[in-house]
């Protein structure tokens, strides 16, 4: 979040979706690692003091070794690759399907209201609840995982596309219309840019939910991916892998969110945010 201004935090008055960091001055650069160093220190201390059996807790060094070994054996590259391609494909498809739907429905007041309740209901039934049924349909395959993740991702995208479309002040469209713009031009020059900030916010939200749904789905479908890795390691009691996998899951999400999606969000808002109500 941005630096504090008058009050203690940034004056960001939008209802904050869960998942965004605390509104505090961010530590920059290397200083960001200090809290983690502290955390590892605490971990090491707990490990050293307690007499934990190997299947309960291992040292940070051991987790590091395991990760290095798994990497050199090619296991990590493949599992990470599987998870990331899943989220990537799901994101692309959710955008391709969700944005047009959001546009179509968002432009009509009645349709928007109609869809809203339905989407909320679907959101209440988490994608994972449908997993057993989807497994019956598509088996233990990547299709199943993809279906569930898309389901999870697409709802916030549709929601936010609808909001974005409805937020575009009518006089922009009317102005262009009076100059003779076609329907298509209206969409590309007014509604799409106008809705884009909201869409990207929805995308960011959706990817947060989607990543978690992906891990959960991978735990059940067991066709590779980080969820499979940590769930499988549980059966063989390999705590080093479980912890290592968890760290990777968190780190990868943060990399994608902070280095890809958040900059995209900022750029979109900076460029087109002026059309926001």
């Amino acid at each position, binding site marked *: 979040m941005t630096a504090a201004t008058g009050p203690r935090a940034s004056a960001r008055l939008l209802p904050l979706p869960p998942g965004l960091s605390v509104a505090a001055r961010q530590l920059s650069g290397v200083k960001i690692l200090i809290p983690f160093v502290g955390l590892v220190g605490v971990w090491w201390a707990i490990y050293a003091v307690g007499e934990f059996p190997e299947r309960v807790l291992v040292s940070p060094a051991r987790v590091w070794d395991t990760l290095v*070994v798994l*990497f*050199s*054996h*090619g*296991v990590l*590259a*493949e599992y*990470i*690759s599987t998870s*990331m391609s899943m989220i990537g494909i799901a994101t692309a498809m959710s955008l391709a399907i969700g944005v047009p739907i959001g546009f179509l429905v968002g432009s009509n007041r009645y349709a928007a209201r109609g869809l809203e309740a339905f989407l909320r209901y679907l959101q209440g039934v988490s994608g994972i609840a449908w997993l057993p049924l989807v497994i019956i349909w598509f088996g233990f395959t990547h299709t199943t995982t993809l279906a569930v993740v898309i389901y999870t991702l697409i709802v916030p995208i549709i929601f936010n596309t609808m909001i974005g479309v409805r937020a575009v002040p009518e006089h922009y469209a009317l102005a262009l219309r009076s100059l003779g713009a076609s329907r298509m031009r209206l969409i590309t020059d007014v509604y799409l840019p106008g809705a884009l900030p909201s869409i990207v916010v929805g995308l960011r939200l959706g990817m947060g939910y989607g990543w978690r749904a992906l891990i959960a789905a991978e735990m059940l479908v067991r066709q590779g991916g980080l969820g499979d890795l940590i769930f499988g390691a549980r059966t063989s009691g390999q705590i080093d892998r479980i912890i290592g996998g968890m760290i990777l899951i968190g780190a*990868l999400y943060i*990399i*994608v969110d*902070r*280095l*890809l999606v*958040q*900059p*995209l969000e*900022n*750029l979109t808002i*900076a*460029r087109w945010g002026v059309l926001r109500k």
Partner: protein
Amino acid sequence: MRLLIGPDARRFISGVLLIGVILFGQQVYGMATASGRLDPSLRGATVPTNVVVVLDFMPERFHNERVAEYGTFAGRDGALNRLRLRFVSPDNLRALSKVTWIARIEPFK
């Protein structure tokens, strides 16, 4: 556009690069070191060959499965980290040589 060189754009680009390295780094490394893996006698093979895939470590089920995709798995060659593969096509042989975690590919005696 000024936006293209701002902090967000820089972050985005570094993000893309980082993800690229994470996803493809090992593959690229494997391709770069491919020639070192294949036994000289196997280079330029034009017919399906029988080989022994040698690993530097004790393979897990994961590795056995991956290796078996390139030919017909025919058991161990003495040690657990030496896997016999029959009828490996030239294409598959080339592909195998690019796998980072394979130490050597030897001809099957």
